[in-house]
């Protein structure tokens, strides 16, 4: 029968998938797979509407995995080898299933991890050594500042305008958003500490203010372009930037991935990523399971990851460590290796976030309010109370 996949792309992954599916259809002539390429906006805003109406594709690549989990199909009875799935994708299975079930909804096409990038050339030119793997946020701030001062660049560091991004250092500083009842807890000391420090940095000109003030509300803004143009010494973003840097920086300068700087509590990045899930409104669950089985098979996952430069979620592949990313740029390989390594040291608090229902709620409140503080519209203390009350209201609104 027909299987439709709703897919968005940040880079070449759409073409790779199309390639793989062509191969699949050659092997399974009875199944016709159609890939509906869409903008990420469609996945984020329109797919929920469709799903609630009981429409939707058969398979979709989604990031709001937990939020929409009640629409996912349980593949467990349909796939050929549930044990293989549990073994290799079990770590993230909880991110995409309704709380309290053991459903297999799908698998992560890619896991991402937040982390930093340094402009090695700038550091060299400034004669400042790159801080080591265990360097703290303060170390990086100090080093970058030196570089910025000597190289006359506008800002030393930047951190994407995103609640997800800022949560990584928050956790490193000991934050825990999750209350005892599983609902959001008020901001704790760890979070407040880092946010205070962060706001201080933006005021001092260490941290780029532009990216945070250049939007209102929860809008995502990245500082990647500044990094690409050598306007930043240090940029905290995530693994997904690697292909982007590879094409846009070229050999303009040397850059390195540094993993996540440490805080008092941990040295951790934030995991995330997109998952491929089956939708329960499908008319051909069997065929869907076949497609999913194929895409989740070790060889396919490996090929997919190698060609897209994505970090796979597949435990077996990661453990083997024989990924051979298809790139000629040694910097890319090195960077990917850094992230693959870092993914193994992610703090448990960070690991829990993607599977936590209220994560986006907290992220949203954080971004909105911290940005207002940086823009000078709100005192920091007010922001903390506002964040707490915003989150509380949302929880109340949802009627749960």
């Amino acid at each position: 029968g027909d299987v439709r996949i709703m897919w968005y792309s940040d880079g070449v992954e759409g073409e790779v998938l199309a390639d793989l599916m062509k191969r699949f259809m050659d092997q399974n002539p009875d199944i016709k797979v159609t890939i509906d390429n869409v903008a990420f906006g469609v996945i984020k805003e329109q797919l929920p509407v469709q799903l609630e109406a009981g429409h939707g594709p058969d398979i979709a690549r989604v990031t709001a995995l937990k939020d929409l989990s009640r629409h996912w199909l349980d593949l467990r009875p349909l796939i050929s080898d549930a044990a293989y799935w549990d073994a290799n994708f079990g770590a993230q299975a909880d991110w995409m299933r309704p709380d309290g079930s053991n459903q297999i909804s799908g698998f992560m096409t890619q896991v991402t991890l937040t982390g930093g990038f340094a402009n090695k050339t700038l550091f060299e030119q400034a004669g400042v050594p790159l801080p080591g793997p265990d360097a703290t946020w303060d170390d990086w701030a100090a080093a970058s500042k030196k570089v910025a001062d000597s190289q006359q660049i506008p800002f030393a560091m930047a951190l994407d305008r995103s609640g997800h991004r800022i949560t990584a250092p928050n956790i490193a500083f000991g934050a825990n958003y999750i209350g005892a009842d599983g609902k959001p807890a008020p901001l704790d000391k760890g979070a407040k500490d880092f946010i205070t420090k962060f706001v201080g940095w933006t005021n001092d000109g260490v941290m780029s203010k532009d990216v945070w003030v250049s939007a209102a509300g929860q809008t995502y803004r990245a500082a990647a372009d500044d990094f690409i143009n050598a306007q930043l010494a240090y940029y905290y973003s995530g693994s997904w930037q690697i292909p982007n840097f590879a094409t846009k920086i070229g050999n303009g300068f040397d850059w390195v991935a540094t993993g996540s700087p440490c805080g008092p509590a941990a040295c951790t990045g934030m995991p995330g990523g997109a998952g491929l899930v089956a939708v329960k409104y499908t008319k051909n669950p069997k065929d869907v399971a076949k497609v999913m089985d194929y895409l989740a098979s070790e060889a396919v996952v490996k090929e997919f990851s190698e060609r897209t430069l994505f970090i796979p979620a597949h435990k077996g592949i990661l453990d083997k460590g024989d990924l051979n990313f298809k790139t000629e740029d040694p910097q890319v390989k090195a960077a990917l290796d850094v992230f693959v390594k870092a993914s193994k040291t992610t703090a448990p608090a960070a690991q829990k976030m993607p599977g936590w229902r209220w994560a986006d709620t907290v992220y949203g409140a954080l971004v909105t309010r911290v940005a207002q503080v940086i823009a000078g519209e709100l005192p920091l203390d007010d922001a903390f109370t506002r964040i707490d009350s915003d989150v509380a209201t949302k929880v109340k609104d949802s009627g749960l």
Partner: protein
Amino acid sequence: MTAPLETASKPSAVQHLGAIALAPVRLVMGLIDRPLRALQRMTGLSGMAIFFLAPNMLIFGIFVLLPLFINFVYSTTGGSALFLPERSYVGADQYQRLFDCSNYLDPLTCQEDAFWTAVSNTFWFVVLQVTLMIGAALVTALILNRNLAARSFWRAVFFFPVLLSPVVVGLIWRWILQRQGLLNFILYPFGVDPYTWLTDRTWSFAAAVGVSLWAHMGFYALILLAGLQAIPKDLYEAADMDGTKPARVFWRITLPLLMPNLVVVIVLALIRSVQVFDEVYILTGGGPGTSTLFITQYIYETGFVSQPRNPGLAAAASILMGLVLVVLTLVQLGLGRRGEKKGKR
């Protein structure tokens, strides 16, 4: 009297094509005529009025009015579910929440501080943008209406931005205005230091106004241009004979007779500036801080982006916005009605 046979309006190739294309239309129109004549006999002129109005109203009712009504129902419900049956009735709670303020002049004292910030930003935006828009569109239309060489080229120049999608508009201007953008690049040789236009509250607001002006001015200019064409030429001749200065011709002849079309422009400009979103969202994202956060962005974020969504609150905000617009438009039309009557021959 020997007037030669008509050669002045020899049909051009385009007209020929047009005639061929029109032939089937003629036929169809002719065919419908007979039943419609019967209808007209039966119902009289007012019946025909209803007939002409009906198709529009039908489509309109189904695809605009009905959703609007549903939207109102939304505003009385709570929860994050998108579809009505799954939502709970909360009465006027959402409205109450929007109006929960201890001091209406200071948005930060409100429960929904973002809403009130957006309201005040939108207000100033509308005031500024609409005045400038009407002025600019009018000047452009007047100039394009002159006997210029290469008229179509100039028209295209001013209309061109309208062809661009808001996303592209926002993008181009962000690239122009950002710290290392084209503008700073161009200004640098003139001794202007690179400036971060978009992270300065005043400048980014001005940019939001300017860019939306840039993007939509051609639209209004075109409406006015068509309106200018409808003014009988002999009135200008009469004014010329009366020794009227161009400025006075404009104020006393052009403007009053343009009134029906000017009303369109004023009303549409007003409504669309209240609804401003896409290009500004791409351009400034509402920043810096919340200085260019407008109502539609608030509605969009509340209803679609934030987790969990709050469609009820978004609907309530949109209903409030609609109400304000209705009032404003009625005022406009009240003023315009006089003009309309005036324009009649």
